[in-house]
């Protein structure tokens, strides 16, 4: 096989979304030569779709905000399953990361005194989300893209070549991470990828790899996620010896479009509710008042009057229950629809038209207005939207060291963004992803660079063994040589049905056992997939290579969900409807042992007494066993 291009870089970043680009900037600024890999064109990764904003306690709008409040909100949102140290770093570093974007050219919406404006979002105590209308992700990815171009311009001035120290491999998909050495010297040494336009292979030898490949939502039928979200990074990490945690926790965003069918699942930003939109059922009732769970009783308004006052006087009123964390709102909508109180197309109503003047709606929610007029013939300034839950985000991900983002169990591998697990616990708050990308993208870049630099200084050089490369290429080309076989699109379709129907918002043991059986059958069928056409830009072939990864990750989700016998955050069991404090102490950890999936219970890192002291004991006892609460209060005493 002669058509292989070879490169050497100090650091390879898989992913050109917010996390990958921020990591690449950090690695390059630490002096490492850096390659960025992306399935799509530069500037089009999933991050571009983020709407509502970036959470950071800059306290520009409400001066009571600070990192501690943000930390507590994040822990509550995640039902205390979060890796606390990540939640702490995230809350502390987010403001600096947002300001840094501004110094690279980002133009956020402003407050009257010229600072970055911040908006309300579910689960956040104060207005905290820096935003640009409802296209914050676009602003973020463009700014990072332009920062990378700025670094390339600097390199051009020094070396004559834009790409001498940082190169973006756009439309170039990674299929394999290579390892080398034995025992303590077993480490990452390279990646194999193929150019989507030509189908030619690329081998990059490298000292460190950062996975920032995003999520897994394309395994579900109704989703806000794009074709890219096939869980590649999750699977690549498993295959080279890493582990995944919390895979049972999948976030179903409460408000996706439900009609017309072609846009089912498309996101309706939470800002609609943050800016005053209310949810009603077919009886016209604001049903969220009926669903405020015990743990949140003190924080949410119990009457419409109080809820409405909150928008103008948040210090003296409690927030409307429409702004409960996403898992709560999704479950409530699900219940309303099942009880027959849904909208004509199987959702509920979300209305801003009666709450804000038309011009304000168009100014604050321009892309929502656009989306509904163009795609659903609905004018949101005049009539309510129909919305329902849509698969949106995976809380689970690659298990990492909380400070350095180094993957547990794989030397030389680092991870950041949606592909990494831990920060969000069992449920992510809106806005906490974009800040996650910046905080931990940067950290992954810094520590990967530090690792690569130290390794290079020992005289180690990356070198991938040719037999492994040949085997990986042969695997990738198999769908062309099959005489006849399955259509990858048909298999993907079935997988989406299985996950949506059997491992969706509300789960039970029988359905998940069935799902696992079906996934096993689908896996079998992927062994004989066939793609027509040639190697140049052939989406059927690309899907055939993504599918095995998708199936592996779906299996992790279903296995973990079957094992966790409680309901918490993005995991609801109708056979175990309660939250169980014993389960709070446990992460489920997936790994591959001799090629088969193993799921183990692993103790969660313990909250420090110092951080625990930010909560009152009464609140902690809603989540923790009495023994834990007693131990914590003794330690802080």
């Amino acid at each position, binding site marked *: 096989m002669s058509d292989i291009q070879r490169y050497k870089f100090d650091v390879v970043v898989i992913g050109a979304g917010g996390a990958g680009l921020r990591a690449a900037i950090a690695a390059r600024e630490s002096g490492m030569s850096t390659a960025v890999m992306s399935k*799509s*064109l*530069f500037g*089009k990764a*999933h991050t*571009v*779709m983020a709407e509502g904003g970036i959470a950071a306690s800059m306290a520009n709008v409400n001066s009571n905000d600070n990192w501690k409040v943000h930390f507590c909100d994040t822990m509550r949102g995640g039902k205390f399953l979060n890796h606390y140290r990540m939640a702490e770093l995230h809350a502390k570093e987010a*403001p*600096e990361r947002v*300001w840094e974007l*501004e*110094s*690279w*050219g980002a*133009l956020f*919406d*402003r407050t009257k*005194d*010229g*600072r970055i404006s911040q908006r309300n979002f579910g689960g956040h105590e104060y207005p905290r989300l820096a935003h640009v209308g409802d*296209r914050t992700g*676009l602003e973020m990815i*463009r700014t990072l893209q*332009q*920062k990378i*171009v*700025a670094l390339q*311009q600097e390199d051009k001035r020094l070396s004559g070549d*834009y790409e001498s120290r940082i190169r973006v491999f756009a439309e170039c998909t990674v299929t394999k991470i290579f390892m080398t050495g034995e025992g303590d010297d077993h480490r990452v040494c390279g990646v194999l990828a193929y150019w989507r*336009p030509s189908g030619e292979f690329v081998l990059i030898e490298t000292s460190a790899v950062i996975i920032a490949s995003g999520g897994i939502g394309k395994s579900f039928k109704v989703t806000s996620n*794009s*074709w*890219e979200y096939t869980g590649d990074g999750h699977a690549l990490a498993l295959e080279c010896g890493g582990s995944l945690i919390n895979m049972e926790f999948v976030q179903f965003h409460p408000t996706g479009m439900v*009609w*017309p*069918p*072609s*846009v089912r699942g*498309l996101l309706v930003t939470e800002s609609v509710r943050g800016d005053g939109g209310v949810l009603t059922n077919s009886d016209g009732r604001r049903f969220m008042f009926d669903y405020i769970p015990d743990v949140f009783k003190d924080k949410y308004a119990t009457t419409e009057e109080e809820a409405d006052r909150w928008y103008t006087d948040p210090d003296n009123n409690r927030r409307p229950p429409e702004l409960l964390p996403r898992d709560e709102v999704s479950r409530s909508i699900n219940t309303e629809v099942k009880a027959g109180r849904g909208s004509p197309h199987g959702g509920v109503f979300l209305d801003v038209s009666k709450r804000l003047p038309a011009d304000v709606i168009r100014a604050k929610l321009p*892309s929502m207005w*656009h*989306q509904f007029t*163009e*795609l*659903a013939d609905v004018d949101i300034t005049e009539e309510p939207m129909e919305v329902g839950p849509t698969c949106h985000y995976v809380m689970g991900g690659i298990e990492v060291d909380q400070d350095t983002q180094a993957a547990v169990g794989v030397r030389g591998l680092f991870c950041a963004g949606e592909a990494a697990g831990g920060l969000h616990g069992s449920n992510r708050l809106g806005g906490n992803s974009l800040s996650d990308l910046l905080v931990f993208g940067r950290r992954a870049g810094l520590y990967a660079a530090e690792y690569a630099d130290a390794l290079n200084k020992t005289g180690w050089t990356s070198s991938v063994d040719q037999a492994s490369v040949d085997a990986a290429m042969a695997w990738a080309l198999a769908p062309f040589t099959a005489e006849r076989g399955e*259509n*990858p*699109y*048909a298999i993907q*379709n079935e997988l989406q049905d299985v996950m949506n129907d059997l491992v969706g918002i509300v789960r039970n043991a029988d359905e998940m056992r069935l799902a696992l059986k079906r996934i096993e059958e689908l896996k079998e069928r992927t062994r004989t997939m066939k*793609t*027509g*056409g040639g190697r*140049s*830009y*052939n*989406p*059927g*072939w690309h*899907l055939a290579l993504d599918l095995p990864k998708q199936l592996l990750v779906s299996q992790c989700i279903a296995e973990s969900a079957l094992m966790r016998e409680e309901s918490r955050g993005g995991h609801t069991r109708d056979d175990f409807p309660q939250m169980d404090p014993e389960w709070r102490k446990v992460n489920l950890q997936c790994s591959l042992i001799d090629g088969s999936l193993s799921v183990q219970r692993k103790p969660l890192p313990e909250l420090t007494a110092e951080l625990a002291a930010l909560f009152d004991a009464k609140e902690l006892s809603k989540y923790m066993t009495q023994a834990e609460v007693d131990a914590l209060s003794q330690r802080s005493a």
Partner: protein
Amino acid sequence: MGYQASFRIWRGDKGDGSLKDYTVEVNDGEVILDVLHRIQAEQENDLAIRWNCKAGKCGSCSAEVNGKPRLMCLTRMNIFPEGEPITVTPLRTFPVIRDLVTDVHFNYDKAREVPAFQPPEGLKPGEYRMQQEDVARSQEFRKCIECFLCQNTCHAIRDHEDNMANFAGPRVLMRVAELDMHPLDTVDRRKQAQDVLGLSYCNITKCCTEVCPEHIKITDNALIPLKERVVDDKYDPVRWLGSKIRVRKGDE
């Protein structure tokens, strides 16, 4: 509710290609991209389409539908009369890779020639103060999703391939205008816009504005003001500085 539509889709690669006919089911509410996905899933797996968000946010799915440059994910089927065949072809200005996918690296190369944002020296992150009314102008241009429909449409490159070396196109010049109107950018960009990026090739026909899916007023709000700045102040650095200070009036 579904009906059978006939589609003529350009299939081929760098070498050559031709229109190929397809009959395919169409359902209520669908957009062109849905229908192409159905062909891909059920008839020809290797039909090359570039897309990502399916929501008009990423700017990947640009193509020409019945000769008009459009985003396929925002083009509703109900704007076409049932029964008439719909023709889908790749963007004409850029080289084809395969089928509906074109090689758009021209746009990225040109963007790299625009000098980066340069804030005033000594201004620390966190200390930036700008008024909404002062950032609003550049914000309009930052809505750009880089679909390159404007680049594809502008006759200065569409009909004159040889201009591509000297003219960066509306998207890239709008980026220059965006930085020029940024309240805190300190670079004088006028000479470069004129001499390197070829601002004078634009003769303000507004074709770019017409196809912009983000409804950005590219010509009126970006290109014409930029041209005025370049002409008015071409050899007068003092006036240029004055204009920056005016923009910065809300600044502390």
